[in-house]
């Protein structure tokens, strides 16, 4: 394939894919942007009480945010938007208002993300530490992060995913561990290795590992173009909840000149066991 063939191929392919109906309109964007701006100004006004938050905003110049809140749309409108809007498909938040986008910023789902992060930190093997460093909103991500994300609504049931990502350090090296949970009713495969290869679409060499009576697909070596993680595992609990865990020797990408770990935090067996652990089994 040469350049022109790719150009033609992309146009030809995009002509036959059908996007879903658009769920965001100009009114929603304007409303969200205003909320972010109000919030930003409020934080600046109270800078004496929020130096850390202010530092993040200075770095980003935009409403990028704290764990669980990639975009800070949390504050209410000072004045209603003059632009007519129609409701989006998002779930209702704890304040009784629809969410602004897929990310939960408070409430039960948000708390599940917090819980996942706490439990992932607690699962790190002895000998490793878990740094707690804020990001700068640009090229340095926070060393710990969690997020609760609305995936879909099937048959009236809301499907959610929770993600927690942490850096893990030992000696001079720093790597990364991830947990991602999909609530019951998800459409992910049941076959262990097919399931494991669905984490972010990453491909790799998969092994079946037994944990008690459970069979876990563990990808022990990535083979595709996306190699952010060195190993990952996926497990479907009997109630349908899916748990993925992943580990990498290095932080991707190496923007802070961090040295990688010399060994992965978990053995293959331990990684499989972590995927089946009740501690990460959240719905």
């Amino acid at each position, binding site marked *: 394939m040469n350049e022109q063939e790719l150009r033609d191929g992309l146009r030809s392919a995009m002509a*036959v894919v059908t996007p879903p109906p658009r769920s965001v309109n100009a009114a929603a964007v304007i409303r969200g942007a205003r909320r972010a701006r109000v919030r930003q100004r409020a934080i600046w006004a109270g800078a004496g009480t929020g130096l850390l938050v202010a530092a993040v905003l200075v770095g980003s110049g935009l*409403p990028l945010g704290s764990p669980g809140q990639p975009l800070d749309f949390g504050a209410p409108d000072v004045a209603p938007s003059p632009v007519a809007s129609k409701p989006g498909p998002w779930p209702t938040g704890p304040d009784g208002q629809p969410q602004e986008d897929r990310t939960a910023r408070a409430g039960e789902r948000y708390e599940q993300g917090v819980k996942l992060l706490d439990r992932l930190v607690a699962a790190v093997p002895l000998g490793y530490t878990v740094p707690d460093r804020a990001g700068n909103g640009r090229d340095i991500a926070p060393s710990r992060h969690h997020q609760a994300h609305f*995936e879909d609504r099937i048959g009236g049931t809301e499907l959610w995913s929770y993600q927690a990502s942490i850096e893990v350090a030992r000696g001079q090296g720093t790597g990364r561990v991830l947990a*991602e949970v999909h609530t019951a009713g998800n459409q992910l495969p049941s076959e262990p290795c097919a399931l494991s290869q669905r984490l972010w679409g990453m491909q790799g060499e998969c092994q079946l590992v037994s944990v008690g009576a459970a069979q876990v697909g563990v990808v022990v070596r990535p083979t595709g173009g996306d190699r952010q993680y060195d190993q990952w595992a996926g497990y479907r609990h009997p109630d349908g909840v899916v748990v993925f865990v992943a580990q990498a020797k290095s932080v991707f990408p190496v923007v802070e000149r961090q040295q990688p770990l010399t060994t992965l935090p978990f053995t293959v067996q331990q990684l499989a066991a972590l995927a089946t652990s009740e501690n990460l089994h959240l719905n």
Partner: protein
Amino acid sequence: MSDRDAAFAEYFAARSDAMRGTAYLLCGDWHRAEDLVQTAFTKLYLAWDRVSRHEVLDGYLRQTLVRTFLDQRRRGWWRRERVSDAPLDPPAGPDGAATHEDRLVLLQALSRVPPRQRAVLVLRYWEDVSIEETAALLDCSPGTVKSQAAKGLQALRELLVEEKTP
């Protein structure tokens, strides 16, 4: 509605579908494409007074979209690149199934090219952005754009072979 909001709404109506297509090629997922487009337009609205000259808008929006994609990808905050069995919607045209499959295989393969190379391929061959402008959007040199494009094309060739191998 203020003149500012009206102008923004008009621009959103004109450009959001095209941007959604670009976002989809970047991330391989319509839901996430929607989120990227929303984020990019939100940032554009906040910067509207600075960049509302129309000759600048497209470049600003494109840059915001691509950088947001790369930034989120790098952080690992967004985990989904291709999570569905049928990530690409069923064909709607009258062509034969094999032709459609070939087209979809290209999109599948593209979604597996490393993110920065993928961004270069999408900007250069979907958006038809020049090497120099791509370099400015990605904050790198024209030479880097050339090498990333070459590597991305090579990766795509290899992935296409892999995707087509039973």
